[in-house]
């Protein structure tokens, strides 16, 4: 995309060196992996303590299944890096994209070799995050941002489901090691909570692997540059869900719910995605739809019982990566050379892009499942899996939907490989189109050739596949599995698929028009629901927030008072009986102070001027100060007087400032609000009741006795209250003095600000 528009940008030396380094590193890692594969038997293990209290351990474990994924990640990765270096040669963002891709490779390697569930989740989230960044490469474009956001939300929410599932599983199994958990699989499945853990895990895998009804994010993720699409959204990241389920298969595959869940999901996803592929015009989106189809097939295969299904899973996993990545590369080459990916405007490019055409043809052959390609062997394995003897009849019926998928795959392969290169040009000739250089031609050719070579010489890859399948099966089963067992029956099925696919290919345009008119993805898929949710969330948030955070202070206060009654009322309700004891007669001074407080409070209710209101409330404070005064605590009373005064000044200046701007002269609320009156009375009653209730309890007077006894001999003071304040509890007094001081400091700037404002007004 961006590559064409930045033709003038010349990569700097640093950028070129970085690109070369990244590619070299990827190839070296791939080569080292090959050497290790030949040298060391599985499993490879490594572990290092990280944070044992959290259950986090840097524990890696590589068996056949992990090794197959590693091979894909590093092998396809090396090709993608090379391709990206060429594809983005004139793009100023090349360094950033390559750096993100490298991080992504590391995260993927971690994901498929992690044995610790936390480490697995860590890497899993890292891939989601990097996918978000990479899909949003063209972040200036709103569509790219939307697509990135969608990919992030779907996989992010799925990640949380995965987290819940892993957490439950770890809790049930008492370990954070996947290997240990899987070994305990047969016991775990009988736990009552296991179905929930399983459901959470499956949802996590479904989002990552774009299963129905979460499939819609993947085609939209095609906003990413083509190398990114080829790597993340076809060959590796979207296979993580498949990988994790395959990993779990050994422990939980025998649980009845396993097949019951996965087979229908996979079959539905695959069929629906292939139908939707017919609706697309954009070459990359067509490929993305068919990727969803392949992922659905993989889900179904994992769900099918039997050893053959395991072999079919890993074989198809490899086959898909080997044909889909080159097809993406080719789509990128076409886009790069012609400037469009809309198939109506493409055709007859075989002369302009001969190597791309060759790569597309080879990959297409494998995708269509033509004999002698690796795709054919995968198809053969799938056929064998479906005819496993222990397969339930209803599963077989569901699995038959795979025929439709196979036929439509043929059609997609033909569109990507034949139509673009061999069909007569649709709208315009592309005489100036050229190949983009070796870096853009060799990677697709290499991967596509691998797909053919493995088909011709299955022995090259068969040992690894058998070990990968063995890792999915309990008790070392599956050692005797071999590829290419099916005979004429498979050949017949493949021929049928080819014929049907050819039919679909030739009827592509009418089918497309039909589907475009008749089928509305948005209504059937969650894409519309997602959009509605995304639009609805702010509305819901607005509704809730306005209800809670309405900004009306009196209501906030009312809520607090109402809630303060609650614990007291609850305690009274639960208590056997509340004995308040005999009520003592109040002293005169106390009664007078109480009257002052009451007068202040009542006048506050009926005064409309805000300032008078404030003064009335100040009266309440002074009343309580008087109360202190006559309870033998003059010092406390003094503090109360000061704090009350400062408070009145601060609030009064706030009010004055507000009045100056808003011209609010008085309180406009009604004088008596029945609800508020009831609430106030209830609150007062509750607090009064609490005080009486507490006072009626026996009091342990040890502290006050100690104060009385120690005041004179040790503290040399006759006034016990004063000694309490300045000595026994002198720290409180220090704190209160600080409060007074800071009240002053707090009020000062306000008063200064007011004076300044007045000065400005006067001027």
């Amino acid at each position, binding site marked *: 995309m961006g590559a064409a528009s930045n033709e003038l940008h010349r990569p700097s030396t640093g950028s070129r060196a970085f690109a070369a380094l990244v590619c070299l590193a990827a190839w070296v890692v791939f080569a080292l992996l090959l050497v290790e594969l030949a040298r060391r038997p599985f499993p490879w293990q490594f572990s290092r303590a*990280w*944070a044992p*209290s*959290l259950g*986090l351990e840097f524990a890696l474990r590589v068996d056949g299944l992990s090794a197959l994924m590693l091979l894909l990640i590093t092998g396809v990765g090396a090709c993608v890096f090379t391709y990206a270096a060429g594809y983005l040669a004139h793009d100023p963002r090349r360094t950033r994209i390559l750096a993100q891709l490298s991080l992504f490779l590391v995260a993927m390697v971690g994901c498929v070799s992690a044995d610790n569930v936390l480490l697995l*989740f*860590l890497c899993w*989230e*890292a891939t989601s995050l990097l996918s978000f960044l990479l899909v949003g490469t063209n*972040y*200036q474009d709103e569509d790219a*941002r939307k697509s990135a*956001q969608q990919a992030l*939300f779907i996989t992010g929410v799925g990640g949380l489901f995965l*987290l819940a599932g892993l*957490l*439950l599983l770890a*809790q049930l199994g008492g370990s954070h090691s996947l290997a240990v958990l899987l070994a305990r699989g047969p016991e775990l499945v009988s736990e009552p909570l296991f179905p929930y853990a399983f459901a959470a895990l499956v949802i996590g895998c479904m989002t990552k692997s774009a299963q129905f009804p979460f499939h819609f994010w993947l085609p939209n993720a095609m906003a990413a540059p083509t190398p990114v699409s080829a790597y993340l959204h076809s060959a590796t990241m979207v296979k993580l869900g498949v990988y994790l389920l395959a990993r779990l298969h050994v422990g939980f595959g025998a649980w009845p719910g396993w097949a019951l869940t996965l087979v229908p999901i996979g079959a539905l996803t695959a069929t629906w995605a292939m139908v939707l592929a017919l609706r697309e015009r954009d070459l990359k989106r067509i490929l993305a739809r068919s990727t969803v189809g392949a992922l659905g097939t993989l889900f179904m295969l994992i769900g099918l019982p039997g050893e053959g299904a395991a072999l079919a899973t890993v074989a198809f996993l490899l086959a898909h990566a080997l044909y889909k990545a080159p097809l993406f590369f080719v789509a990128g080459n076409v886009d790069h050379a012609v400037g469009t990916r809309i198939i109506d405007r493409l055709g007859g490019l075989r002369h302009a892009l001969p190597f791309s055409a060759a790569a597309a043809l080879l990959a297409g052959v494998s995708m269509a499942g033509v004999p002698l390609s690796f795709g054919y062997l995968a198809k053969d394995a799938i056929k064998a899996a479906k005819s496993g003897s222990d397969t339930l009849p209803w599963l077989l019926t569901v699995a038959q939907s795979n025929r439709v998928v196979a036929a439509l795959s043929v059609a997609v392969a033909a569109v990507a490989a034949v139509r673009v290169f061999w069909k007569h040009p649709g709208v315009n000739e592309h005489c100036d189109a050229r190949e983009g250089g070796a870096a853009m031609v060799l990677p697709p050719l290499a991967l596509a050739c691998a797909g053919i070579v493995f088909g011709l010489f299955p022995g090259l890859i068969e040992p690894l596949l058998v070990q990968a399948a063995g890792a999915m099966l309990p008790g070392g089963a599956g050692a005797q599995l071999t590829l290419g067992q099916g005979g004429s029956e498979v050949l017949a099925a493949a021929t049928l698929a080819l014929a049907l696919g050819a039919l679909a290919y030739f009827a592509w345009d009418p089918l497309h028009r039909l589907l475009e008119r008749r089928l509305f993805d948005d209504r059937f898929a969650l894409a519309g629901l997602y959009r509605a949710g995304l639009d609805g969330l*702010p509305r819901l*948030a607005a509704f*809730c*927030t306005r209800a*809670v*955070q309405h*900004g009306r*202070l009196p209501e906030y206060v009312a*809520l*607090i008072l109402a*809630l*303060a009654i*609650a*614990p*007291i009322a609850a*305690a009274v309700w*639960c*208590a056997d009986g*509340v004995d308040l004891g005999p009520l003592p007669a109040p002293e005169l001074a106390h009664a007078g102070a109480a009257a002052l407080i009451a007068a202040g409070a009542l006048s506050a209710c009926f005064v409309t001027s805000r300032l008078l209101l404030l003064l009335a409330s100040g009266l309440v404070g002074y009343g309580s100060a008087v109360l202190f005064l006559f309870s033998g605590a003059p010092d406390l009373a003094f503090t109360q007087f000061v704090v009350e005064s400062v408070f009145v000044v*601060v609030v009064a200046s*706030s009010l004055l*400032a*507000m009045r100056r701007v808003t011209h609010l002269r008085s309180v406009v609320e009604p004088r008596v609000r029945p609800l508020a009156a009831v609430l106030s009375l209830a609150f007062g009653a509750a607090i009064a009741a*609490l*005080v009486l*209730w507490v006072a009626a*309890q026996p009091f342990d007077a040890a*502290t006050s006795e*100690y104060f009385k006894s120690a005041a004179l001999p040790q503290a040399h003071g006759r006034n016990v209250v004063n000694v309490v304040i300045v*000595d026994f*509890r002198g*720290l409180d007094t220090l*704190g*209160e003095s*600080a*409060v007074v001081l*800071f009240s002053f400091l*707090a009020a000062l*700037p306000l008063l200064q*600000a*007011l004076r300044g*404002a007045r000065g400005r007004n006067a001027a």
Partner: protein
Amino acid sequence: MLALAPLLVPLVTALVTALAASRPRTQRVLSFAGSLAFLAAAALLLERVNTGETLRIAFGAWPIEHGIGFAIDRLGGLMVFVTALMGFATLLYAESDVDAPRRAPYLAPLVHGLLAGVAASFATADLFNLYVWFELMLVCAAGLLVLGGRLRQLDGALKYLALNLLGTLLLLVGVAMVYGLTGRLAFDELRSASEHVAAAPLSAVLGLLVLALLLKSGAFPLFSWLPAAYPTLPAPLLALFAGLLTKVGAYAILRLVADVVPRAPTLYDGAFATALGWIAAATMLAGVLGAAYHWDLRRILAFHIVSQIGYILLAIALGSTAGASAAIFYTVHHIVVKANLFLVAGLVASATGSYDLRRSGGVLAARPWLAALFAVPALSLVGIPPFSGFWAKWLVLRESLALGRYAWAAVALLVSALTLYSVAKIWLEAFWKPLPAHVEANSAATPTEQRPALAACALLGLVTLSISFAPQALVEFADAAALALRGGGQQ
């Protein structure tokens, strides 16, 4: 004497900076010297408590059961250290021109006074004394809120004052009633005395106390003062408030229910924890929905404080030692991350000219390093592994599931998803989206001196990264701190 440092150092600093108010340069030097001394003392304190020692001091050398004492255990020491760190970061940031609070002569004294109140709350071992420090915090916070005296500030400050005074009042009633029931105020004495008190009135009193503290911590539905007042503050003060203030309330709840009166007879024992748990769940949801609703960076982040407080309260509500440990880990992680987010938000706003995401954009292209500074705390807030927030959430989730609180765990996960939504919104709007055409570029208003602000953000980012990649140390510390709480040993 070291036990006295959390109160004395910031309080003395506040006094001398107040006296030097007319000499800005001297005040600055004194303020920084005080802040560094506080940080050093807090570090020493942390080292001491890490051996398992509880540093005690009885004021006036009166017997601890009748006088006031400070007792700094692992939990208190850790919180004091984080307080000192936040104070330093805030003052450092305020040295820049980024969203600077008006050069107010009483800024430094009020900040140090606030720190004194916060740190003393963590250090004190006396219930009434705790109330005093709450009051000190309230007054200093109110003073900082009205600094500058703009109208928008005053409205927020008024709500803050009114609602928090009400909370303080309820707290005072609760403290007085506790004394009335037990005749004690010192934590150590209350622990045993509360076991012999009639259950019914004690339940009422404790309920009232916890309610007051919930208001202080910004729990649902009592948090309305927080989003009303906080967004009116300039970035560094906002970071200080956001990091510390609500956490004192949460700390006090933890101290109270897990340490001081864990074995007190109450009428609604299980119901109490359950109620607290559901309040926590509602707090998480209400906060994150508020964040999803708003477009102002400061409001979004202010609501995130509320939702994150919910996680901490949830961990406390679990009631087990592991729950308390999770709460401690979460609190420390969250203080650093939340303060840092506000600091970075200040830089973002100064780069685009607005806190409003609709009028903001293009930050990634203009200042890529700002994206890195934002990414660390933001990813941590969302809870993306391996950032500290993930470990915090993992601890809470693990313990909720272990105790069979599945519904709370589900709410916690849902809130995580919504947090992802609102943080992604910030990223998409401020960092990715190009600056809207109708908003003129804000190059003229770009502050000249940004380095202190960047240093403060980088410092807090490094703290988060070290917690993220080496969580074991903090988890072990939190475990030990939780185990040392008297109520914890039982579970």
